[in-house]
């Protein structure tokens, strides 16, 4: 079990972007959708295509992200499904409680019991679900390529240049430094305990017992890391860490393409806010064509 950061250099548009641009743009899109609470498909859908374009431009191989997509699909279905089941008051999805033609009913039984209820699927719920999926994927899809296409050595610098302090930025760098070390320690510990007859896949007993049986894996790794820490502190103090403003060796420069994308991000965010708060556009509604299409 070796933690390999999946980054590798590629010569793509996305990778030529300044890392700050990518992070800021991602934040713009997330905020544009969440702060003014945009649910209008006429805004969500174009943003989805913007995100999708950037995702495709990153050119990551399908085999790299297959698992991630599986996970995200499960997550999205789970959320959307659960939301439908438990629909109640509060939050954006309460709009789905508005009277709306019922399409069909799904029986829901709590697993292991015969206790349950019928969940009505209405037109507005269905449309909401579709919107919700698109909206969530629009946000997720911007972050997925980052580990594959952004040099881990650049995060600290990027955060520093976005205004984080020297210390916070360096924490980021240092975390990357330790990640593979602790993953290796965990492997070694696992091997060492297996050699003492410990079997991970045969954890027995109740839940508490099984969790307690994880101690032989967790304790050695955590305790060794606390000891390591003391020496790392010494090593950093001895090289004058934190005594004055740091020079960060890596330099970052915005190119015209970065300004363009940043401008786009800002424009999207501002437009969404203005539309929603200024003109009342962007809230949830079920378009007529959809109602006609499904109620046919």
């Amino acid at each position, binding site marked *: 079990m070796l933690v390999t950061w999946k980054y590798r250099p590629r010569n793509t548009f996305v990778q030529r972007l300044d890392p700050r641009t990518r992070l800021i743009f991602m934040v713009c899109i997330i905020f544009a959708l969440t702060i003014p609470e945009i649910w209008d498909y006429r805004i969500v859908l174009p943003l989805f295509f913007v995100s999708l374009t950037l995702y495709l431009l990153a050119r990551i191989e399908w085999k790299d992200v297959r698992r991630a997509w599986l996970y995200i699909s499960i997550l999205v279905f789970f959320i959307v499904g659960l939301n439908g089941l438990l629909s109640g008051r509060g939050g*954006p*999805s309460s709009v789905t409680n508005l009277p709306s033609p019922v399409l069909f009913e799904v029986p829901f039984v709590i697993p292991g019991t015969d206790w349950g209820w019928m969940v009505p699927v209405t037109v507005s719920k269905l449309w909401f679900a579709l919107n919700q999926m698109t909206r969530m994927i629009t946000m997720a899809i911007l972050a997925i390529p980052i580990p594959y296409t952004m040099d881990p050595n650049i995060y600290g610098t990027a955060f520093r240049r976005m205004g984080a302090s020297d210390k916070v930025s360096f924490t980021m760098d240092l975390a990357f430094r330790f*990640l593979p070390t*602790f993953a290796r320690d965990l492997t070694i510990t696992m091997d060492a305990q297996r050699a003492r007859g410990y079997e991970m896949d045969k954890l027995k007993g109740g839940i508490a017992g099984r969790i307690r049986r994880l101690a032989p894996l967790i304790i050695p790794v955590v305790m060794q890391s606390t000891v390591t820490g003391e020496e790392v*502190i010494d090593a950093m103090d001895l090289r004058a860490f934190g005594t004055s403003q740091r020079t960060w060796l890596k330099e970052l420069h915005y190119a015209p393409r970065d300004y363009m994308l940043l401008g786009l991000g800002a424009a999207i965010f501002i437009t969404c806010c203005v539309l929603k708060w200024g003109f009342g556009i962007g809230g949830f509604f079920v378009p007529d064509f959809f109602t006609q299409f499904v109620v046919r």
Partner: protein
Amino acid sequence: MNESKNTWEFGTRQVVYGAIGAALYGVFSWATNIFPLPAAGNVTFRPAVAVLIFFGVAYGPWVGLLAGFIGNTLGDALSGWGFYWNWSLGNGLMGMVPGLVMAAISNFKERADIMKAVGWGTLGIAVGMLFASLTEMFVGGIDFNTALVGYFVPAFVGNLVVVAILLPVLMIAFAAVAARRGR
């Protein structure tokens, strides 16, 4: 020297343990994605949470915050899942709140001190998971019931069980290590 424990200090020590906590939290979270772990119904257990709370308790709120925020981000990124800022922030809070008790803990193997840590850990889990679940209403567009029943309760219960079991174990082990180093 951390003899006079200063809760809000932020120096080399906090940077190093923040990073170590983050890396550990990331690795353990990621490992749980790979290996089967006990689960009951909707509740999955993340032993990593006990490690996070431990770092908060042992090294203070800044360390807890950084370890939770960066660690969760790393764990998700390692698994290739993207970035869920509200969960990362919620994890940060989950580590930060128990950090507030750091100065009040003098003996890691004393029963009373362990109870104190578990108590603050519980509060941290409540605050952190509540934050993440409620923000999910705006991010994921779920309603309040779903946020509470679908997200908060399982996350809270799962994390609480893990912390109640593993945090004392970690603290007792740490007492022995600390006695040997004695910085």
